[in-house]
């Protein structure tokens, strides 16, 4: 049994009206990868904020012991100075500065008060080597993909001689290859004695790399599982997280599929700025009434681009091809027209593209179909309240009332508001882009239930998702997309994760 590097004892943290952490104890052994899992709102982030000094000493109860000493962190700088670094979900790099400048931001090597660029670049090279990023230190952050930016964040942490690295959902926005790389890197660090805490929703990756798993629920520690000692199964982790057996991660459904109502023919889209790059190539697809059609693919396969270009040319240039509804070609040249013609698209980025966060639930729900709540010249407040209340109940949106601001809702409930907005617009075709990203297991189940319900009401649904189990669990039929092309189509009963991945890999090789 190796030495304990961090011990948090009986931590309690109360916000007005909510007990976010209730007597949580948590200890991490040196050299481990310690996973921290739990639903959204379980208290993971709060716990890490207590640890890193975002919530300073005195604003919580309990003790923190780091490397054998009791610590009273006043702020982040304080915890960083003893070697605790936290990498947030939202990256904190400055896009228009170079890699080297970012790594040493606030910590620049100086000579007589002037930045020593040579030293900065030299040292950056070493750090980049450690994290396995082959880029010049002078490259601007904005020119890097998300995966590489993540690595720069880690290099930055290492430059501060970190002893405990905390990663908050590091792979949430990475594709599979980049996620894989990042996890390998953690394992590599471990060999050199680094300790890390990994917060994640992805159970598979936790199972793969974590030595110890601590599960939080409702601000309390439920269980700590030790690899080798305890049997670690997905079912057990999920049960601990949600507090009930989720024998079915997906609600059962009976599909009643009608005639084909929606069709896209020979759809071609070019990149909006690099106009020689074709993002969607000769895409053809159909969706039937009451059917849930999945589009599987890796990140960057062109799925979101396809959806957004169909949705009123919201993405791309020089778009050609036809969109047909009930066999008649419809005009989708602007979002306004697409919505009028019965298409709805719930974006993958609900905070910056889906919701007006500073406005209330009611306003967000009715935004896409204000004509429908008009009474004469004005907005009919009764109609609006009724509409919002109806969807609040139908989708069980958990909010104190419909006047609550969207920004104060949890991720899952925000997603329900976005879906409500589109249901209120009464579309025939509903495109859902990563509808369960970043939301917890319980809320996911609810979203799946909603999808089923909508399909049974006769809507045609297109589901874009990077999680293959989700595609397999929810859809009737699956399109596989890679590098802008549809490379395969299969009914769900013939599909498996292996088959889908195989199809993607196969076409990649052929093209490569």
């Amino acid at each position, binding site marked *: 049994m190796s030495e304990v590097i961090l011990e948090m004892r009986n931590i309690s943290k109360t916000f007005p009206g909510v007990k976010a952490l209730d007597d949580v104890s948590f200890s991490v052994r040196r050299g481990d990868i310690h996973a921290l899992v739990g639903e959204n709102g379980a208290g993971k982030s709060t716990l890490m904020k207590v640890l890193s000094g975002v919530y300073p000493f005195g604003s919580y109860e309990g003790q923190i012991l780091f490397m054998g000493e009791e610590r009273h962190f006043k702020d982040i700088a304080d915890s960083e100075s003893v070697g605790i670094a936290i990498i947030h979900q939202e990256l904190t790099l400055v896009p228009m500065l170079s890699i080297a400048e970012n790594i040493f931001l606030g910590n620049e090597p100086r000579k007589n008060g002037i930045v020593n660029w040579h030293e900065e670049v030299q040292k950056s090279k070493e750090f980049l080597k450690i994290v396995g990023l082959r880029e010049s230190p002078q490259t601007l952050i904005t020119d890097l993909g998300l995966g590489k930016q993540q690595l720069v964040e880690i290099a930055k942490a290492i430059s501060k001689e970190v002893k405990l690295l905390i990663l908050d959902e590091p792979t949430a926005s990475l594709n599979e290859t980049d996620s894989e790389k990042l996890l390998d890197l953690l394992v590599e660090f471990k060999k050199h004695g680094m300790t890390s805490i990994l917060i994640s929703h992805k159970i598979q990756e936790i199972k793969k790399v974590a030595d110890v798993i601590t599960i939080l629920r409702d601000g309390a520690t439920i269980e700590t599982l030790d690899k080798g000692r305890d049997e670690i199964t997905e079912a057990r982790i999920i049960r601990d997280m949600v507090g009930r057996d989720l024998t079915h991660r997906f609600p059962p459904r009976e599909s009643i599929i009608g005639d084909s109502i929606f069709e896209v023919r020979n759809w071609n889209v070019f990149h909006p700025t690099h106009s020689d790059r074709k993002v969607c190539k000769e895409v053809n697809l159909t969706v039937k009434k009451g059917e849930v059609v999945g589009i599987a693919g890796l990140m960057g396969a062109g799925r979101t681009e396809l959806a957004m270009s169909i949705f009123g040319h919201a993405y791309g240039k020089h778009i050609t091809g036809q969109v047909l509804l009930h066999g008649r070609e419809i005009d989708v040249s602007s979002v306004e027209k697409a919505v*009028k013609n019965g298409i709805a698209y719930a974006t993958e980025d609900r905070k910056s*593209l889906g919701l007006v966060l500073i406005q209330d639930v009611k*306003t967000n729900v009715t*935004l896409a179909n204000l*004509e429908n709540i008009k009474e004469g*010249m*004005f*907005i009919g407040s009764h109609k609006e*309240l009724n509409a919002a209340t109806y969807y609040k109940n139908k989708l069980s949106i958990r909010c104190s009332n419909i006047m609550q601001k969207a920004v104060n809702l949890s991720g899952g409930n925000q997603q329900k508001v976005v879906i409500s907005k589109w249901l209120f617009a009464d579309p025939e075709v509903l495109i859902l882009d990563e509808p369960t990203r970043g939301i917890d297991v319980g809320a996911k189940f609810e979203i799946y239930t909603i999808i089923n319900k909508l399909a049974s009401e006769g809507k045609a649904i297109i589901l874009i998702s990077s999680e293959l189990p989700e595609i397999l669990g929810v859809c009737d039929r699956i399109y596989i997309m890679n590098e802008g092309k549809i490379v395969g189509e299969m009914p769900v009963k013939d599909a498996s994760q292996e088959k889908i991945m195989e199809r993607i890999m196969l076409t990649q090789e052929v093209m490569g």
Partner: protein
Amino acid sequence: MNTFKSIIKNNIRQYGMLIALVFIMIFFWISTDGILMRPVNITNLLLQNSYIIIMAIGMLLIIVTGVVDLSVGSVCGFIGGLAAVLMVRHHFNVYVTMLICLAIGAAVGAWNGFWVAYQKIPAFIVTLAGMLIFRGLVLWLLNGESVGPFPEEFQRIASGFIPDVFHYPGFHLTSIVIGVILSIIIVFLDYRSRRNNQKYEFEVLPLPFFIFKNLIVVSAIMGLCYVMASYKGLPNVLILMGVLAVIYTIITNKTVLGRRIYAMGGNEKATKLSGINTDRLSFFCFVNMGVLSALAGMVFAARLNSATPKAGNSFEMDVIAANYIGGASTTGGVGTVVGALVGAFIMGVLNNGMSIMGINIDWQQVIKGMVLLMAVFFDVVQKNKSGK
């Protein structure tokens, strides 16, 4: 007691600036030995600030979309100059001139809107350019000299008073009657919305507070009307401002257009992806601003009874400041017409009060700057408190 506290807390942001205005007025009332509240001064105060208020209403929409228009002062001067040239030099009919001026104002707004909404040039730059362009045009139009005086009909829009139908000697009874009617309408509407809210089980002010609030509103209206009535009655511009305030309050609160403008200011991309043509909205707001600037330009010229090349100089700053003092957010999506009015009045009362007290223009500027800073600071503090 607890509920009393929470009521105060919940409403302080909404009414904070209004309360500040009242305190400022009381302060100057005392420190100017009552001169501030004299009928003639109150009338002056309204006339002096009418053009700022008219533009502040237009600017509210622009600020809610998340940008500012720096050209309004120059546009105001330009249209004043245009009116003068048409009427004084070319003897155009007053009403024809007014229509032409409003149309040109719309065209000016469309010019700004075209670059901002459809060519995606930052509004700051477009309107900064507009500020120079239209200042240049007014200099050219007037050959650098003042043009006036205006026909009496035109002067009346800025310095006239509504006619008295009762002819009661020494007292403008019509003004009182208008005040009474207005009070009844306001109380009735507020009561109706309260009843509706109760029906939907939303939180409403407790009855005593409701009565208290309405009592204050009614006494403010009646007080103003009484003061005005004992001088020359309600000025025409006050009616104009009142009508504009009501129309724009309805637009912002009750119409689809208003809802869309606020949504756009809150999150432009999300609004666009909800099937709303945000470019057209932005364009509309600038056209609207142009028309209101033109109106303000005419009011200002009519009040001075001449158009000068310097007219409207730095008005944009007062107009923008009025909105921020009134609680509008610099990032868009937040702000009210009433807030803009209150903000404009705070600036106006400060100007007026300090002038009466004989404070020099240099210190007036310093104090106005501090008030702007403190008002926004107060807002930020409130937001942070409620955020936690």
